């Protein structure tokens, strides 16, 4: 890998995919060295949407910085906020009320379903089928409506706060989640019919973008990307937070390590998320939705790390506190950044069309990569 950089012989085609390109879902810029249709090297150029959120957070208080994290992985904004809230709570040693914990998990899992559904549609669109995109939005809009009713926004909610959640759930919440589960179960077989079983899809994805388990760990891949390679890495299982340890759900694992395995992991995770929601939706305990906290939060001197499982993988919040009201240094370990670093390794030797399938199954969200 090292030697090949800079030694492209004549006759290779170097093309820029992005920053404006239909397949990059944002402003990712890939410089691709091609030999005919075969990819010899993929070099990501990042930073087109880098806002230096880590630097911004250094001047924001512990209540304020959470909203910024919604803008990182905007498809799992609840889960990002959750991670930040948990990290602050860890520093303050606040006990979150049971009701808040359940609401948080419900929101996390709904977010995960919404994110996976958007990914499903977008990935099908990458492979040239436009219709699944619109069908996926039908279910996703239902989740967004639920979110809007309870949190007041559809994408960047800022609902999790240190100590619990900002507002209690809406009275309609339970009913609408039940409606959603019914809708989802009546429509999910269409996903199989239109995409999973389709012979063209299978041929496009099987054996494409192979990533071995060792490489997945070495590249720091997490989430469905790593689980598609057989790496058991679900944070909800190994470092449970907010009561995931009491829930019955399976960590989805596939061993093939190709695009189709990553695809299947996400499709099966949809069902696991529904399973978690079904366990909790009728068992939301009564009580406070937010713990009593001081008006101004001050974390004690020290370092705090909290990881959560977003739809894309392991999201880590690392806060270094000097005892003030603002973090001294904050680091967000974003799953997309590490997942993207494996793209070059996966793509070498495959066709240009495969690259799109790989990017689709890596589920890249560019603001998450750039931060």
């Amino acid at each position: 890998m090292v030697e090949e950089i800079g030694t492209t012989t004549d006759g290779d085609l170097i093309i820029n995919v992005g920053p404006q390109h239909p397949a990059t879902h944002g402003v990712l810029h890939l410089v691709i060295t091609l030999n005919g249709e075969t990819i010899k090297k993929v070099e990501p150029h990042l930073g087109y949407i880098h806002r230096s959120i880590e630097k911004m957070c250094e001047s924001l208080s512990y209540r304020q910085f959470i909203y910024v994290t919604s803008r990182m992985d905007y498809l799992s904004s609840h889960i990002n906020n959750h991670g930040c809230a948990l990290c602050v709570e860890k520093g303050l040693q606040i006990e979150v009320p049971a009701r808040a914990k359940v609401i948080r998990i419900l929101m996390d899992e709904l977010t995960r379903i919404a994110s996976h559904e958007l990914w499903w549609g977008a990935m099908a669109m990458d492979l040239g089928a436009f219709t699944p995109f619109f069908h996926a939005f039908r279910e996703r809009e239902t989740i967004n409506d639920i979110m809007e009713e309870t949190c007041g926004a559809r994408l960047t909610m800022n609902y999790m706060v240190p100590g619990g959640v900002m507002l209690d759930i809406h009275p309609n919440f339970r009913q609408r989640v039940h409606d959603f589960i019914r809708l989802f179960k009546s429509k999910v077989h269409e996903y199989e019919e239109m995409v999973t079983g389709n012979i063209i899809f299978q041929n496009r994805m099987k054996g494409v973008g192979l990533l071995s388990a060792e490489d997945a760990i070495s590249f720091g891949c997490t989430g469905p990307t790593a689980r598609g390679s057989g790496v058991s890495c679900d944070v909800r299982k190994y470092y449970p937070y907010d009561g995931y340890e009491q829930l019955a759900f399976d960590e989805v694992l596939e061993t093939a390590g190709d695009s189709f395995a990553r695809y299947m992991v996400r499709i099966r995770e949809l069902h696991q998320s529904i399973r978690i929601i079904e366990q909790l939706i009728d068992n939301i305990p009564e009580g406070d939705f937010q713990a009593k906290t001081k008006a101004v939060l001050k974390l004690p001197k020290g370092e705090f790390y909290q990881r959560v499982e977003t739809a894309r993988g392991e999201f880590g919040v690392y806060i270094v506190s000097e005892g003030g009201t603002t973090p001294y240094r904050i680091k967000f370990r974003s799953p997309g950044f590490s997942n993207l670093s494996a793209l070059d390794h996966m793509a070498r030797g495959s066709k240009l069309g495969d690259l799109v399938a790989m990017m689709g199954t890596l589920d890249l969200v560019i603001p998450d990569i750039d931060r």
Partner: protein
Amino acid sequence: MNDIHDISSASKAPGPRKASGFITYIRDVFYAVKSLLVGLRRTGYYFTHHKEIITQQYPDNRETLNLPERFKGEVVMPHDENNEHACTGCTACELACPNATIKIVTKFDLTPEGKKKKAIDKFVYHLELCTMCNLCVVACPTDAIKMAQTFEHSVFDRGQLTKILNKPGSKIREGVE
């Protein structure tokens, strides 16, 4: 890492080839065609069932469009019929705001007893900086501000987005401290 593995040989459709090539060949073709027909049936269903259409014709359905009451559109300051609001000018919202969206200009009013009392002169709200994070509404001790359901904020001049939330001549409601 330098090996360029031959993807095309690995990507053959269902399962490994068995020895009886011809039967497998026919079966491959059959299952391939079947999987395509299943997809065609699904899209054909939607082509013929127009009641499944989910399009909302947005500007036309303004009348029937119901936004949930918690929807975060912009910060407003409710005034009652006497043109009174509940803002004491404590600047809790200003401090809570992560983007310096709110700027409170205070003045000193004379109470009937002749004492000086702090009150708001202008509650300046920069909609163009607001991220609708709801932290100011949560921070307000007197519930003087809330989120409105408006969402069509486009204007031709950026200056119009800077708003003064307290109405002219309004004063603080009796009994709000």
